[in-house]
């Protein structure tokens, strides 16, 4: 019920005294009321709930959150390296690489 979907504002206009926008969600475009986000510009991303834009999506914060999540396991690896596993992965990588090089140079892959 509190579902709100992020979409890109592609057009803003006035309709019967209300500030409105056309908002693009993937391939679908729908109308949304901009009365609660009056300074919204074309090209910005807003969250739309039951036909009303309720908040903007902050691009910088979105990137920051995602990067923080991406970097999570780097901390783990510093604290608890599993040496045997790393060695196995490294050995597998080298084997694959040498097979690839052989194949590229015209050698048969056994």
């Amino acid at each position, binding site marked *: *019920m509190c579902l709100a979907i992020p979409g890109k504002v592609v057009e803003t206009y006035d309709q019967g005294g209300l500030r409105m926008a056309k908002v693009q969600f993937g391939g679908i475009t729908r109308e949304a009321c901009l009365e609660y986000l009056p300074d919204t510009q074309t090209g910005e991303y807003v969250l739309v709930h*039951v036909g009303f834009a309720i908040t903007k999506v902050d691009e910088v914060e979105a990137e920051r959150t995602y990067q923080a*999540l991406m970097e999570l396991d780097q901390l783990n690896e510093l604290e608890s390296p599993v040496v045997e596993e790393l060695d196995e992965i490294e050995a597998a990588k080298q084997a694959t690489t040498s097979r690839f090089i052989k194949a590229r140079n015209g050698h048969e892959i056994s």
Partner: protein
Amino acid sequence: MKYLDEYRDGDVATKIVAEMRRIQTQPWVLMEVCGGQTHSIVKNGLDQLLPPGVELVHGPGCPVCVTPLEMIDKAHAIARLPGVIFCSFGDMLRVPGSDGDLFTIKSNGGDVRIVYSPLDCLKIARANPDKQIVFFAIGFETTAPANAMLAWRAREENMTNVSLLVSHVLVPPALEAILASPENRVQGFLGPGHVCAVMGYSEYLPISARYKVPIVITGFEPLDILQGVLMTIQQLEENRAVVENQYSRVLDQVGNLPAQKLVGKVFEVSDRKWRGIGNIPRSGYRLREEFAVHDAEKIFDVAEIATLEPAICISGEILRGIKKPHDCPAFGTLCNPQHPLGATMVSAEGACAAYYAYGRHLKPQGKDAQHQIADPVHATGGSA
């Protein structure tokens, strides 16, 4: 789609869960407040990814679920009246009252219409000046600004044929009711992201402080929810209890001020009955006196209807995080989405309906059986 796809990345999900395993030292019970979060958790199997001992219980944040049966019966009585066009969000249409649902009324000749936005009611009212347009205004704080705008515009444009049947509920009083209960098991909350997009999160600071409970305002995508769980566990493990914001790309502490302002002009706080839970003081909105001519409860003389909920239904305990759908003897047998017996089965966002839709028909065997596949070392030995 931008801002959706990147928060559904399975590799990153694995990293977050690994971090949970690294820091967790003891069992914790967390509650996700929102029905939308419950749906996302069950749909994506997020609860089954969590380390053993981290349990998610499902909160009361589904407005369709908690709309009391009396109010649904009132809506149905109004929708049956000649000369009425009854407008509603789609998910209210198949909620059964004491005698059928809105679809049944429509198929019997009632004029029931699904609207995408409350503003659609204004268009319908202009096209049907001889009819009474009644909108079923339900929802949490997220939906209140949209519904408030309908009442506001109806009054501004003097559209006397537009009214609202209001059954609005508020999240913070429900959290307090859960925490104040002696049966409470919840040790941390994933707060409602879109409610806070409108309201900000200042209201949650005193609750977190008073009950010494972490509240992490959380989004709805799989990575949002997993990060929300991680942040809550971090607080619990460090013996901290504050309000934190996982969903910073969407909200801040202040929220949407123009929306809050109009909501305050149109609605006032009132007591509300929650289906499955009962009356919670100051837990909802009603229209202010200035909007009496647009208040369907005042315009239509619908007698108080006495209703009876099935005694077997445990939805009240599910909504407060005390029990799970599997604990109910009627789950999936007497009670299913086609024939719901209570609050948590009537909407797709209800915990029971989500468990039913995503094949969680069988109770996990043994205490932590759901984790056996993921983590054989920590499993406690069920018979499955």
